[in-house]
């Protein structure tokens, strides 16, 4: 008996419908109502009937929205496969990857990633001084928000890399440049470098404009509903719409070295990593897809904080480790750039959609339906977050696995 080397199976999944409501503060709306609107639009986008959906995956249950059972019951869905992740933008990529895995394995035919997010005011800091929350809020010392974790990680990054903090302006300005032409974005007013430089250092070294638009409690304050429908590859081919293939993915990484709002080593609980470089784990989705960073036409990333864009570009090899501050320019990652980043405007300007706004946008881009934001000849898109998760998407005629 010969034992052959194990090869991971290919994903056989595609996005066949996607929609997001306008992002903003909608006092009259409920999370279920926002979800209903997004679902209706995504079904129309896909050409599917609601009754064809048979799987449900989501990451933003209570307290951001409703848990899976409430959404499924309220909207009359029927699912033979459900999964719900921790309520955090960190798990947006993993939710979509789980949907893709489920249809590949035949656990369901059409998995809907669906929810409405209705932000509530209030909520207070954790009481612990040692951060039972994984990203280590230390409330009694005034480290009360993940904004502070991001500020701490960024300061450490600046010290290790010698990066010029002021270069971060280009990340924020490029995001806004993209958002200006996205009618679904919340912050669409053009932004100047002078306005950026006048933005208060709310948590020095982070300016207010370096952060997603947050409320008084440090949490996202905008509402939205989002829906992404994932189908098995052969079923996707039977629909009229051009499918967007999910060709490979990898999950969020976790260890004592992970910092959650920074690259590994930049957290506050005794991390030892001093110099970051991409690992085999960071590049495994590329490897499985037979693609490299150079093949990516548009890069999408979790950008609740502008430094996370620098760090994610480094994590997936789009620029050399420690060099992102020099590599990134407003032109390079902005509209018409050689590597446009978050063409929806990102969390920084579209508003905090946890990444679902990015997923809807990449679907439009790879279908060639992004209007004034369309990236010419866009064939490969990556979702790659500082948390280590990555998904690779290709347009229909660019399937790499044959």
């Amino acid at each position, binding site marked *: 008996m010969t034992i052959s080397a194990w090869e991971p199976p290919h994903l056989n999944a595609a996005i066949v419908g996607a929609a997001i409501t306008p992002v903003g503060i909608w006092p009259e709306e409920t999370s279920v109502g926002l979800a209903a609107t997004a679902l209706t639009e995504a079904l129309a986008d896909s050409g599917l009937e609601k009754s064809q959906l048979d799987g449900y995956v989501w990451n933003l249950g209570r307290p951001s929205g409703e848990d899976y059972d409430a959404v499924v019951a309220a909207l009359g869905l029927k699912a033979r496969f459900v999964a719900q992740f921790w309520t955090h933008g960190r798990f947006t990529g993993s939710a979509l990857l789980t949907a893709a895995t489920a249809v590949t394995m035949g656990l369901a035919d059409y998995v809907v990633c669906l929810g409405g997010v209705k932000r509530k005011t209030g*909520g*207070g*800091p954790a009481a*612990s*001084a*040692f*951060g039972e929350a994984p990203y*280590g809020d*230390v*409330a*009694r*010392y*005034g*480290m*009360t*928000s993940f*904004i*502070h974790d991001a*500020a*701490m*990680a*960024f*300061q*450490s990054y600046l*010290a290790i890399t010698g990066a010029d903090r002021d270069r971060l302006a280009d990340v924020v300005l490029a995001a806004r440049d993209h958002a200006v032409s996205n009618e679904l974005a919340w912050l669409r007013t053009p932004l100047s470098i002078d306005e950026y430089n006048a933005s*208060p*250092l*709310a*948590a*020095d*070294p*982070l300016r*207010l404009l370096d952060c997603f638009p*947050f409320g*008084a*409690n*440090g949490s996202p304050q905008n509402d939205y509903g989002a829906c992404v429908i994932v189908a098995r590859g052969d079923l996707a081919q039977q629909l009229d719409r051009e499918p967007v293939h999910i060709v490979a993915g990898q999950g969020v990484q976790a260890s*004592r070295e992970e910092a959650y709002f920074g690259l590994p080593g*930049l957290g*506050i*609980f*005794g*991390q*030892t990593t001093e110099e970051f470089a991409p690992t085999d784990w960071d590049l495994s989705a590329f490897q499985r897809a037979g693609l490299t960073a150079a093949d990516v036409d548009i890069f999408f990333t979790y950008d609740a904080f502008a430094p996370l864009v620098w760090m994610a570009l480094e994590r997936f090899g789009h620029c050399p480790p420690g060099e992102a501050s020099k590599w990134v320019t407003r032109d390079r990652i902005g509209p018409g750039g050689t590597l446009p980043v978050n063409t929806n405007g990102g969390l920084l300007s579209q508003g905090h959609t946890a990444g679902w706004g990015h997923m809807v946008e990449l679907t439009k881009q790879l279908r060639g339906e992004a209007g004034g934001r369309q990236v010419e000849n866009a064939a490969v898109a990556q979702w790659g977050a500082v948390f280590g998760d990555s998904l690779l998407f290709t347009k229909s005629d660019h399937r790499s696995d044959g």
Partner: protein
Amino acid sequence: VSPEQEFWEHVAAGNVLFQRCTACGVLRSAPRAACHNCLSREAAWEKAPVSGKVKSFFVVNQAIATTLEVPYTVVHIDFGDAVRLTANLLGDGPPPSVGMPAKLVIGERDGVPLPQFERTTP
């Protein structure tokens, strides 16, 4: 009592103590119920190091869900061997910088003692 409760009982008595794993000898700053290195449940408390260096810091100029008066500074201090503690930097002086020495003291907030840091005067 949980390790964290025990930590605060020691602080109330005027001592900042860290756990050292009695099985593998690793010192840990955040009090935990098991050793992250060898999983041993056994640990002994010992006096925390006093001198460290600023590994990172930030300055809060806009209060978020806190009654602390802004601006205030949060420092992450490295004692060596990946033993670290996060607290406020007390006292006046120039803004901190990464690598700057600092010393552990017991301060208080609302009448409750807690570990804090001060600049080290040369």
